[in-house]
C-alpha cells in the first residue's frame, strides 16, 4: 500500500506541474475510463521539427491517473512526436515506479491512451490495442 501511494504519486497528485489547457494546440484529445468515469484531456503543442514543446492535461480522476498524467506530460516535452507514439505501458509504469493490478492499470494508462489517440489522430484505435 505504502508502495502504491509512493511520495512521488501523492506529490504529483497534490501539486501537479502540468495541469491546464492549451489553446491553440496542435493535438488535443479526451477520453474516459468507462469503469470509473475518470476523464482526461490532453493538449499538446509541437514545433516545426516535430518536437513537443508544451503539454497540459485536464479532467478528473484518482491519484494514480492524475499522477500518471502529470508525469507523462513532463516526459513527453522535448520528445519527437514519433517517439511519443512509441511509448509503452512499461514506460508509464517506470515513470510511476509501481506495480499495478488489472483495475488500477487502467487508471495509470488512461493518460497515455489519450496522448496516443491525440497524436495518431482519431480512427487509428488499432495502434492503442496494447493499452487495453
Amino acid at each position, binding site marked *: 500500500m505504502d508502495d502504491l501511494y509512493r511520495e512521488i504519486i501523492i506529490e504529483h497528485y497534490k501539486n501537479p506541474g502540468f495541469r491546464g489547457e492549451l489553446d491553440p494546440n496542435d493535438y488535443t484529445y479526451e477520453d474516459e475510463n468507462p469503469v470509473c468515469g475518470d476523464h482526461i484531456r490532453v493538449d499538446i503543442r509541437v514545433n516545426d521539427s516535430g518536437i513537443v514543446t508544451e503539454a497540459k492535461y485536464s479532467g478528473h480522476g484518482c*491519484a494514480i491517473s492524475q499522477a500518471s498524467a502529470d508525469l507523462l506530460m513532463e516526459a513527453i516535452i522535448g520528445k519527437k512526436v514519433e517517439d511519443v507514439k512509441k511509448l509503452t505501458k512499461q514506460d508509464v509504469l517506470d515513470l510511476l515506479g509501481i506495480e499495478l493490478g488489472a483495475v488500477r492499470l487502467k487508471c495509470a494508462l488512461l493518460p497515455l491512451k489519450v496522448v496516443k489517440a491525440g497524436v495518431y489522430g482519431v480512427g487509428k484505435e488499432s495502434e492503442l490495442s496494447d493499452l487495453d
Partner: protein
Amino acid sequence: MSVDFSKYKQDFPILSREVHPGKKLIYLDSTASTQKPQIVLDAMDDYYHRHNANIHRGVYTISEEATELYENARAKVARFIHAPSARSIVFTRNTTESINLVAFTWGRKNLKENDLVLLTELEHHSNIVPWQILVQEKKIRIEFIPVLPDGILDMNAYKNLLEKKPKLVAFAHMSNVLGTITPVKEMTTLAHQVGAIVLIDGAQSVPHLPVDIQDIDAEFLAFSAHKMCGPTGIGALYGKFDLLNEMPPFLGGGDMIRKVTFEGFSTNDVPAKFEAGTPAIAEAVGFGAAIDYLSSIGMEEIAKHEQEIALYGLRRLEESGGIKVIGPHNQRGGVLAFDMSGIHPHDVAQILDSEGIAVRAGHHCAQPLHIKFGLPATTRASFYLYNSKEDVDSLIKGLDKVKMMFD
C-alpha cells in the same frame, strides 16, 4: 426482543478469510453482490452430487428430482414476495435480464412512437438503457421523475408528469446509491389511476425489505438471487399472469415451445414461454435455499438490523469530518455512498482494501444520478445481515488512514 445478528456471521465461510496477512475480510459491498451462507453452497453441491440432470421430459428418477427441485425453487420465490402463484415467476439471469425481458416483449408489442415511459433520476443503468433502446428503435419518449437534493423523489413533479399519460412507470424500490426507499405502493396507485403499467426494480429491496407484491399491486417486479445470499446467474421476473400470458416470447428455443414444425411454432404456457434453453438449475436450487435462509431469520428483522447499522454509519461518517454522505438522513436502506473532499474514491477503496475492507468506488452503474449530484464518482459502503457496528468502526478507522496518507 430483538434478534442477535452476530451469530449469523459464522454462517458465511468467506467472512473468516484473511485477505491480507492479519487482515480479515470486512465485506461492505453487499449492494453489488452478497456473500453466500454454507447452507446455499451445500444445497448446490448436493444437487450436483445427487440429482444433476436436465429438467422436464426426463422420465428417469434423477431428472424428475431435478425438475421438482427447480419448480420448488420457483414456488419459494413466489411465496417470498407474496405472489399469487408460482406461474407468475419467470426465472431469468438477473434483474437486468428481467427488465430487458419486459422491454423486449411487452415494450415492443405495446409501445408506439411518442408513447411516454416514466423513469426516475435515481435509476440504475439497467432500468434506463433497455428503455433508451426503445427510444432508438420505436421512437418512444422517456421522462425522469426528479430526485430532490435530500435524495427523495419529487412526488409533486411525479403527479404532474402523470398528467402526460405515460404508458409505463418503471422505478427502483431502493436506490443502490442513495439508499432511498421509494413509496412504491403510492406510486403504483397513482400510476394505475392514469392507466399506466408499473415495473419495479426490486434488486435492492427484495433482498433487504419485506416485499408483498400483491399489496403493492405493480404489474412487474425484477430482482436477482446473488444480491440475497443466492448464487450468480439467476434472477426472477414477477409479472401479473394475464399480462405475461399476452406477451410475445423472449428468446426462442427448447422449453419455450408447445409445438414446432418446419412452418412455425406455438409457444408453451407461462412461465416456460420465457425460459428458452436449459436454465440455471443448480442456481435455482441455491436461490431456493437462500430464500429459506432469509425467511428463517425474517425480513422484518433484517430490515431493522440494516437500518440500525446504516444510521449508525451515517452518524459516524459525518462526525469524522471531511466526508459528505449523499441520500436521505432518516429512513434509508443499508447503503452509504460518500464523497471525501479532494480524495478520489478509487484511492479511498484501494487504501481500505489494504485493511481488508471491501467497498466499491465509482458511479455504481448510476452515472446520470452522479452527474445530477455533481460527483464523478463516490465511495460506497453497504451492509447486510452479516455486518455489525464493529464493521462500521473498522471502516472509520480505515478512512482515518486514508486521510492521513493524503494529508
